[in-house]
C-alpha cells in the first residue's frame, strides 16, 4: 500500500515553506500539496527514503530560486486583480447616478481655481487624503498583525487590499500634479486647468474606493478569491 503523509508531516511542510520565504498561506497551501504529492510519488519508487530526504529531493525540482518564482508570480497576479477591482469600482463613477457627483466635483474643483485660496484648498485636499491613507495604513497593519497572531495565517490578497493598495495611487498623482507654487497655479491655461481639476477629482474618487469601498467589502472579496478562506 502506498505511503501517505501524516498530519504532522503536512504541518512540517507548511513550516518548510515559511522557512523558504513563502509568507502567505494561500501560496503555502498550493506548494504544500505539491510537495506532499511528490513525496508520496518518490516513496513509491524509493520506499526507504526518509521524509526529510524525500522532501529535499522534491524541493530541488523547483530549481535554484526555490519558491521565489511562484511567490513573485502570485504577487503580480494579486496586484493585477486589485487594479482590476479598483477599475471596476471607478467605472461606477462614470455612470448614473454617481456620474452626477463626479461632474459636480469636477465643476467645483474647476471653479475653485478662481478663488483666492484655490491653491491652498487643492493642496489641503491632497494632504488630507494622504493623512487618511497613512492613518488607515497603520490601523490596518495593526489589525492584520493581531489577526495573524490569532489565526497564524497571512493572506496575500488581504495584505494587498488593506495595505499595499494605498500608497500607489498617491504616488501616481504626485507625479502628474506638478504645480510648485500658487503663482503657477493661477497662471494655468484652460487646458491645464481642466486637467488639474480632472486629476484631483480622479484622485479623490480612487482614494475613496481604495480607502472606503474596497476595505468594506474585503471579507466578501476574500472569500471570492480564496475558496480556502472559509474552509480553514
Amino acid at each position, binding site marked *: 500500500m502506498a505511503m*501517505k*503523509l*501524516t*498530519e504532522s508531516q*503536512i504541518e512540517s511542510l507548511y513550516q518548510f515553506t515559511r522557512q523558504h520565504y513563502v509568507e502567505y498561506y494561500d501560496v503555502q*497551501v*498550493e*506548494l*504544500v*500539496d*505539491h510537495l*506532499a*504529492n*511528490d513525496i508520496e*510519488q518518490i516513496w513509491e519508487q524509493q520506499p526507504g527514503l526518509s521524509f526529510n530526504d524525500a522532501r529535499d529531493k522534491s524541493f530541488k*525540482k*523547483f*530549481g535554484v*530560486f526555490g519558491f521565489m*518564482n*511562484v511567490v*513573485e*508570480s*502570485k504577487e*503580480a*497576479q*494579486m496586484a*493585477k*486583480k486589485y487594479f482590476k477591482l479598483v477599475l471596476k469600482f471607478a467605472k461606477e463613477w462614470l455612470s448614473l447616478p454617481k456620474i452626477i457627483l463626479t461632474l459636480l466635483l469636477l465643476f467645483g474643483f474647476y471653479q475653485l481655481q478662481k478663488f483666492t485660496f484655490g491653491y491652498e484648498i487643492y493642496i489641503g485636499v491632497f494632504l488630507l487624503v494622504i493623512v487618511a491613507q497613512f492613518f488607515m495604513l497603520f490601523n490596518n497593519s495593526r489589525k492584520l498583525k493581531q489577526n495573524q497572531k490569532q489565526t497564524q495565517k497571512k493572506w496575500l490578497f488581504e495584505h494587498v487590499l488593506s495595505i499595499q493598495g494605498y500608497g500607489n495611487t498617491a504616488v501616481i498623482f504626485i507625479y502628474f500634479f506638478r504645480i510648485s507654487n500658487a503663482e503657477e497655479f493661477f497662471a494655468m491655461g484652460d487646458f491645464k486647468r481642466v486637467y488639474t481639476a480632472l486629476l484631483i477629482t480622479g484622485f479623490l474618487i480612487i482614494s475613496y474606493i481604495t480607502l472606503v469601498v474596497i476595505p468594506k467589502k474585503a471579507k466578501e472579496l476574500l472569500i471570492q478569491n*480564496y*475558496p*480556502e478562506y472559509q*474552509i*480553514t
Partner: protein
Amino acid sequence: MSIMGNHKLYKGSLQTIILKLLASNTKMYGYEITQKVKELTKGELKITEGALYPALHKLEADGLLNVEVAKVGNRLRKYYKLTENGTKETANKLEEMQEFLKTMQHLVNPKFSLE
C-alpha cells in the same frame, strides 16, 4: 521559465498545453498537470514546478481559470478549471498552434507544401 525535456521549443506553448489539458479534464491540480503531461508525452516533456505555477497564476489573473479548493485526505488542494473566457481562449490558442505547426511544416519540409 523553463521546461525540461526538449529545450526551448516548448517554451511558448506552456499556456496552451495547460489550457488544452483543462479543456479535456474539467478540473485539475498543479501536480496532476505535471504528471499528465509526463504521461501523455511518455516522459518527453516535463513541466518544471518553477514554470507551472507562475503560468497557472497568470492564467487565473487573466480570468481564464477559476480556482476551487477541496480538502483531500489531510490536506487542502487547489483545483483549476476553465472559465467561460478560458474555454474561448483555448480554442483560439489551439487554432494558433495549428497554424504555427503548419507554417513550420512548410519551412522545415518544403517538399510537402507544393499545393
